[in-house]
């Protein structure tokens, strides 16, 4: 089976000299959920925006391979990628209120997607919109079509965003922190919805999140990002059973888990802060915060294959 999305050695730099993404490689297979997890500034959203060709002006992007099915995204003209975007590859963002246009009704915004990509009539677009609103669990979809975004709750807005992303039957859905702005009860509902839609439609899902709980419940594959690099990538079960990179382990220790971490006892934490990474940075970016740092960590860091689908970059190869 060929991956829906294939990225090899993606680099993104910004005009101020920041190297936001450094040599990221990942693949998303059909029907698979691939989670990219990391803290703010690690480059996870920039990676997603690179795929959609939505990087801010001035950003420089290069990659050995960046392919969506048979489309070579590194060579395609912007207007051709724009045609794919919202069509065969769709994206949903964290804050549905800022991604929906407040001046247009839900129905009009949803129908526009089909008008633009499929040149179908407004009436047909509205039919499809109503059908999808029903599919994402919105009751009385006909009434919702005439409403404006501000009339909906946060959970409903995110459902509308998901329905809108599905208008053209995408094969790849990129979701950037889709439930971070929502209450926990609503988060559970939205994640259940994403999972069931994915199984029904065979979607490939690239899910960007900082929440290890979301990763554990959603992902088949995980890429852990730190300072622009994927420091560990693995099958989800293997990652949580045997996290290899010291950063992954530190991150897992930071999370209080009901019934597991003892209330009142200190939580594990990662000392220090993320360094600023410029172009040409050499060595492990985690070394100043790492308990196992050694002189070798200032040099080139080897890529270790712990098993056919578990990789990490760390000088402690056996970890």
């Amino acid at each position: 089976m060929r991956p829906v999305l294939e990225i090899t050695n993606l680099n993104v730099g910004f005009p101020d000299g920041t190297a936001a993404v450094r040599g990221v490689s990942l693949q998303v297979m059909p029907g698979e959920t691939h989670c990219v997890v990391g803290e703010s500034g690690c480059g996870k959203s920039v990676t997603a925006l690179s795929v959609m060709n939505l990087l801010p002006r001035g950003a420089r992007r290069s990659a050995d391979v960046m392919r969506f099915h048979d489309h070579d995204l590194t060579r395609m003209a912007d207007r051709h990628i724009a045609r794919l975007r919202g069509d065969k590859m769709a994206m949903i963002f964290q804050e549905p209120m800022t991604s929906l246009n407040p001046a247009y009704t839900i129905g009009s915004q949803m129908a526009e997607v089909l008008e633009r990509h499929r040149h179908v009539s407004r009436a047909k677009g509205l039919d499809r919109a109503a059908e999808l609103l029903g599919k994402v669990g919105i009751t009385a979809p006909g009434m919702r079509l005439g409403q404006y975004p501000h009339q909906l709750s946060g959970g409903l807005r995110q459902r509308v965003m998901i329905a809108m992303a599905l208008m053209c039957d995408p094969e790849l859905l990129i979701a950037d922190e889709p439930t971070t702005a929502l209450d926990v009860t609503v988060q559970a509902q939205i994640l259940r919805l994403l999972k069931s839609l994915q199984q029904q439609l065979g979607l490939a899902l690239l899910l960007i999140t900082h929440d290890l709980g979301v990763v554990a419940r959603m992902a088949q594959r995980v890429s852990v990002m730190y300072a622009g690099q994927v420091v560990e990538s693995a099958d989800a079960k293997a990652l949580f059973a045997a996290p290899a990179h010291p950063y992954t382990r530190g991150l897992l220790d930071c999370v209080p888990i009901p019934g597991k971490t003892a209330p009142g006892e200190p939580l594990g934490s990662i000392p220090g802060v993320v360094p600023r990474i410029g172009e040409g940075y050499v060595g492990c970016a985690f070394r100043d915060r790492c308990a196992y740092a050694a002189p070798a960590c200032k040099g080139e860091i080897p890529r270790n294959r712990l098993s056919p689908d578990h990789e990490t970059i760390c000088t402690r190869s056996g970890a």
Partner: protein
Amino acid sequence: MIEVKNVFRHFESRSGLFSERRVVRAVDGLSFSLESGDVLGIVGESGCGKSTLGRLILGLMPPSAGEVLIEGQSLITLDRRERARLIQPVFQDPFSSLNPRQRVREIVGLPLAAQGALSAAKQRDAVMDMLARVGLSDAMADRFPAQLSGGQRQRVAIARALVLRPRIVVCDEPTSALDVSVQAQILNLLADLRKDLGLTYIFISHNLAVVEHVATEVAVMYLGRFVEHGPAAPLFATPRHPYTRALLASVLTPEPGVPIPDVGLGESYPDPSNVPAGCRFHPRCPMAIDRCRSDTPPTEPRDGRVTECFLAA
């Protein structure tokens, strides 16, 4: 230490110029007390009134009815300076709660300067001592907020809250804007400071895992009331209110292979301007019976815990 007596806070709102006025019942008849040294965790979804309650306890807003007592004194009889010596806030967003044009030493020193009781030299010593306690080096004192990371800013906000040595700190989502590794640092710091300085916390959060970790008492808030309230450990071990159970079920622990829970709360969303009759949770409750739609649920405690539910007996 803190006594809240039958406190209400209602807001009037209009959705349009000619539409009817609606009354938002943000806090709807709350009574509870909190002992010195305890940590009261208040959890609930957005719009449940937990931040309004925090503001009422801070005295930033008067209640519509009822009274808040701190160490036996009614909050409204205290002036701002007296109040500031007793109770201080730490807010969610350390980006908007610090003055961007002041240096860290000025931000942390401001409460002392406002009290006007200390000489400049003593004030400086108190500021530097507090910065050291929250884990900020001397060099940080001359920085501006923009030069600090999110975690460092939240440390500054904590230092400012503690520099007057208050008895109570109201923490409103203190780690929600922070990364998980930084969140752990700040939670550990708050726990250490509580022990060292003998503080009482009111800890408002939507994150149940965090509240379970820090709280000694927990209140689960729904549409302006504590639907369940009692000591933390037994409440988390055997939640009695269906809403508490739903909230706990929706915590996603990092355990791969475990399915995403179906919390069974349905589609209706709580609206504080339209509080249902009877039990306010009944439209979302998977277990509701006829009585829940008309009668007010019990408020009597059983083994130290109040559960406003007919079915929890």
